[in-house]
Structure formats: structure tokens, C-alpha cells
């Protein structure tokens, strides 16, 4: 069922069993889990079904610290959310990503990789991925041309990625959601406030507003906030009428530990003979699976480095391609042009016989850092909600880890007599902790309502429930305690399905 919240009587009261705020990958995955159940689900979307400038404007915000993308361009504010422009990169987190590591401050989740294992295959279906197979041997059995670089041992291994179409949730799931009798999708329903009971131990209602000047109230038994990491934190912080610091923020953790994946040109791989390296090749909408070079858990422990992987791009192509941070601008048309040029260079530069030199491009987790954070600005958006401010801050551990990763890959390539690795200029001086101008993120926002067993160390518990509030849950990558190396979508969908199961069990038991 779909209701446009602009077209119903002002000050309406809407009641249901479960209220899901946000209809991106997390919100829609949650709603799908409640299809054909006896529960009435209220699914709130701030925008409509299409991109609209005035809706994106609600996501505008200032950034400080490390250079970052315009906030209103990094997330999409309509049904389907940011799946409207994602690239479809998916891989599973590693067991080490959930563990406490003494060299990574604030690391460790209250759940393990085993806890997510049952949910990854279910998430695969939502994302239209292939078989739940991340073993390189499986993919090599399907295509013998997927040959590995000749590594000895497992210090460096091939970590597989799979690629979604990419599934646009807004397109794929619109009919399913709209036709579901128990899912009540409200568009143009921006949550502007969350109201708790007297002692802030439970949520009683949320307030929604739209640019048509309407305001409504939603009451439910369970509330799940699934608006993306920056908006999740913003909403908790802005809901401060009863608790001045904001809901769930009794220990000043909301908004802190904002994490991105550093996605950055880092080194060069020079081979003794040209090779197409098909196993590592990715082509938009064609490649089903590919490998990136990953570092074993033992080597991460030995070198006290973060988890990161390297992808390979022919060097002569990579040198002509702009850095991501320079591609993505506030001007949507210009961004499209920049991406078209980026892809054109890639297609035109590929050689059938392969290449002798490749750029090694890193995607690496950012160490959890309390000073990397989302706060509220004094400026408000058109609905009267304080805008988000992002301070993105890196630490020396990221740079130490980048150097470590390429030292390890360089050693292993040397052992294999396959070639040599050369670090880029900015990584050569071990005492230099500054970052070059082309440093960028992967548009992956994580960690602002992090998961921790101890309320002093995080915002949500192992079930994504906000500490101290009986019926408020956070969904999505904002719950990540650490960022791992892979793109976040697969894991956030798996975590959302796990959350749906938990909420179902909880309300079934009542």
C-alpha cells in the first residue's frame, strides 16, 4: 500500500506494529522480511519515487577535516535510497573484522562472522548476486582463464567479489512493497523527531513532515531507523527535546566513529611478462566475480595493520583516470560526465595481449576514531531539522597499513619472481603521516551508531537495539563497529535481515 503523505489530512495519526524509517537497502530489506506476516508495517520514505533536488537539499551539510564529497551527493533521498547509484560491489567480511585487535583501537564487535553466516545467502537474493560462493577455486572451475598471480602460501590471497546488476531497490521492489497489504509505504514522510516516554526508556512516536507543510504522527510498537549512517546519527542527535544530548547518546557515542573506506591509488605492479590478469579484471555490468589481493589474518597480526585489499588496473589506463574525490561533485550533470570519461579511458585503453604494469588501488578499512564524527550544525534544513556536519579524520594507522600491505604484496611478488611492486611517492617516507590531495573515500558511510556490548563503548547492542531504549533499533552500516575491507552493502543487508528476524521473534513472543 502506498500513501503520499502530502495528500492526507494534516496532523494525521498513523498507527502500526513496526515503523521502519528509511527505504534504502536496509529499510526495504527489513520491510521485505515482514511481507505476508500479520504485522502492520509503516515504511517511511522522506522523498518520493524519483530524484528531486529539494529532497536532496535536506541532506546538505558541511564537512571539515579530510577532504570529502558533498554530503547531498553521496546519498540519495528517494525510495530505494543510495542503491539508485551504487556500483554493485559485494563481498563478505572476514572473521578478523569482528575480532578485537590490540593494534586497532576500539576494534571488536559483540557478534562474530559466524553470527552473520546464515544471513549472507539471504542477502544475496535481495541483491541479485550469483551463488553464495566466495572461494576462488569455485570461480576458476567455471572459467579456467581466471588465473591467479603465482603466490606461494597464503600471505596474500585472492578475495572474491561478486557484482550485483546493480540492483536498484527502488525499481525492483516498488511493486512488491506497494502491493503488499500489510506494508504501508508513506512517501514524503521525513522523520523530524523521535519522541520517547518520560524516562526515555521506550519510543512512543515519531513526527514526520514534508515540504507541502503537512505534519503527521506515527505510533508503533517497534521503531527501526534505517536512513544511512549520517542521517541515523543526525536523527538521534536532533531528537533532543527530552534528552539534550540526543536519544541513545547518554555516553556521547552517537555520531562518533564515522568510518569510510579509503579508496586510493597506492602502488604499481610491474610484471616480467604482459598478462590480462582476467581474475582481477572488472567491467561494468559484465563481470560477475573478480578477485582482489588480500592479506591473510596472520600477516595482518604480524604487521599490525588494518584489513585492506588491492585491485589492479592497467597502469597506462589508471594514469589517465581522475581520482574518485575529483570525479564526484555537487553538480550531478558534471559528475555523470566525469564518470563517462573515467569509463571511456578504461575501455579504450585495454589491450588484448594484456599489460606489463598495473596500478594497485587500495580499499582499506578506516580505524575506528571517536574524533571522526557527525554532529549537528546550527543551520537548519527546510523542515527545521539541524543539518549534519561531518568531520572526517584519519589516523597514522591507515597510512602504516597501506605501506604494510604493499610491502607484503611486494615480498610475495618477489618470491614468485613475477615482477616487482613500487609504492607511490606519498607512501615512501615512513615518518610522513599526511595524505595527498587525491585521497578519497568509497562513498561508504559507516559506524555512527556503532555496535558494542558495553553501552559506554557503543550506541546499539548485538541486536542493533539502542542501549537503554526498549523498542528503538538502528539498521544499516551505522551499526558497524569496524569497517572491514569490502563494500558495505552486502553486510548491511545481511545485518538488516538478522535484525528483522530478531524483531519478529520479539513481537511473536509478546
Amino acid at each position, binding site marked *: 500500500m502506498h500513501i503520499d503523505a502530502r495528500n492526507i489530512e494534516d496532523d494525521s495519526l498513523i498507527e502500526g506494529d513496526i515503523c521502519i524509517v528509511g527505504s534504502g537497502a536496509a529499510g526495504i530489506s527489513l520491510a521485505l522480511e515482514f511481507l505476508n506476516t500479520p504485522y502492520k508495517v509503516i515504511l517511511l520514505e522522506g522523498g518520493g519515487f524519483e530524484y528531486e533536488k529539494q529532497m536532496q537539499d535536506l541532506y546538505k551539510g558541511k564537512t571539515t577535516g579530510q577532504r570529502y564529497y558533498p554530503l547531498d551527493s553521496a546519498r540519495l533521498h528517494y525510495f530505494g535510497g543510495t542503491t539508485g547509484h551504487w556500483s554493485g560491489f559485494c563481498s563478505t567480511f572476514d572473521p578478523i573484522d569482528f575480532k578485537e585487535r590490540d593494534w586497532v583501537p576500539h576494534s571488536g564487535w559483540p557478534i562474530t562472522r559466524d553470527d552473520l553466516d546464515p544471513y549472507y545467502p539471504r542477502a544475496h537474493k535481495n541483491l541479485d548476486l550469483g551463488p553464495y560462493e566466495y572461494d576462488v577455486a569455485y570461480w576458476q572451475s567455471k572459467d579456467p582463464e581466471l588465473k591467479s598471480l603465482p603466490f606461494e602460501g597464503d600471505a596474500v590471497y585472492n578475495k572474491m567479489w561478486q557484482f550485483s546488476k546493480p540492483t536498484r531497490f527502488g525499481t525492483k521492489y516498488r511493486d512488491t512493497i506497494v502491493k503488499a497489504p500489510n506494508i504501508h509505504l508513506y512517501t514524503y514522510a521525513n522523520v523530524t523527531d523521535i519522541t520517547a516516554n518520560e524516562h526515555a526508556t521506550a519510543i512512543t512516536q515519531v513526527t514526520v513532515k514534508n515540504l507541502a507543510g503537512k505534519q503527521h504522527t506515527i505510533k508503533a510498537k517497534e521503531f527501526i531507523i534505517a536512513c544511512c549512517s549520517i542521517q541515523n546519527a543526525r536523527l538521534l542527535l536532533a531528537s533532543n527535546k527530552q534528552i539534550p544530548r540526543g536519544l541513545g547518546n547518554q555516553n556521547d557515542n552517537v555520531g562518533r566513529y564515522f568510518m569510510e573506506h579509503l579508496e586510493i591509488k597506492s*602502488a604499481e605492479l610491474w610484471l616480467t611478462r604482459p598478462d590480462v590478469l582476467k581474475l582481477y579484471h572488472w567491467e561494468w555490468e559484465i563481470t560477475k566475480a573478480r578477485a582482489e589481493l588480500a592479506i591473510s589474518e596472520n600477516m595482518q597480526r604480524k604487521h599490525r595493520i588494518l584489513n585492506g585489499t588491492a585491485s589492479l588496473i592497467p597502469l597506462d589506463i589508471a594514469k589517465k583516470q581522475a581520482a574518485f574525490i575529483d570525479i564526484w561533485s555537487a553538480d550531478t550533470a558534471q559528475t555523470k560526465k566525469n564518470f563517462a570519461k573515467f569509463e571511456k579511458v578504461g575501455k579504450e585503453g585495454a589491450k588484448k595481449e594484456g599489460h606489463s604494469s598495473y596500478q594497485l588501488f587500495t580499499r582499506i578499512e578506516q580505524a575506528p576514531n571517536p574524533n571522526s564524527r557527525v554532529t549537528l550544525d546550527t543551520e537548519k534544513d527546510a523542515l527545521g531539522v539541524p543539518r549534519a556536519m561531518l568531520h572526517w579524520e584519519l589516523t597514522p594507522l591507515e597510512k602504516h597499513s597501506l605501506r604494510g600491505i604493499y610491502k607484503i*604484496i611486494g*615480498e610475495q611478488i*618477489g*618470491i614468485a619472481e613475477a615482477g*616487482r611492486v613500487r*609504492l607511490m*611517492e606519498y607512501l615512501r617516507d615512513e615518518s610522513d603521516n599526511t595524505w595527498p590531495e587525491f585521497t578519497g573515500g568509497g562513498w561508504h558511510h559507516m559506524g555512527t551508531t556503532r555496535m558494542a556490548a558495553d553501552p559506554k563503548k557503543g550506541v546499539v547492542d548485538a541486536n542493533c537495539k539502542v542501549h537503554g531504549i526498549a523498542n528503538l533499533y538502528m539498521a544499516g552500516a551505522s551499526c558497524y563497529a569496524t569497517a572491514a575491507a569490502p563494500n558495505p552493502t552486502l553486510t548491511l543487508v545481511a545485518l538488516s535481515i538478522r535484525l528483522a528476524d530478531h524483531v519478529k521473534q520479539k513481537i511473536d513472543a509478546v
Partner: protein
Amino acid sequence: MAVAQPFVFSHLVDAKTIKEVGANYLETHSAERDRKTLSQLLMGGKDVANFKQNEIQSMLKKQVTADFKAGNVIQVSGWVMALTEARQCALYTII
């Protein structure tokens, strides 16, 4: 002269780059800045004259791989190199 030719590395880069790498190595290892010292270090004290060029090449190629396995790795001009091949570059620079 085989002792001054880093086998794998010389297949990847030109002579100018080898000289640059050699010069950068010597900047931080000034005690090795003479032909005799470098030759002795590379040959493990053995006399170059007692070996054929291909024997030296084979021996040093194996030593380079052994360096990588043992972690005797150095970063010169950004290259992740075996200590042996960095010394070979240095020798190439000064002969």
C-alpha cells in the same frame, strides 16, 4: 658484468632507473659505496673470478628470491626490493 645486473629488475626497468635506484641506495648506505665492498657483499666473500657469468647470475637470482623469503627487503625509490638486487643496482651505478 653479471654481478651488477639485477636479473628480474633489469627486465622491468631501463638502465637509467637502475642507476637512480643504485644512487638512492648508496645515499643511505654510504659505507658500501665502493666496488670491492659491494662485490664482496654480493658474492658472500667468494672471488668473482672463480665463476662464469651465468653461474654468478644464477647464484644472485637465487639469492634475490631467498632475500624475499627471509624478509631481507628494502624500499628504494618506492621499489620493494631484495637487499641483494638493491646492492646490484648500487654496483651498476658505480662501475
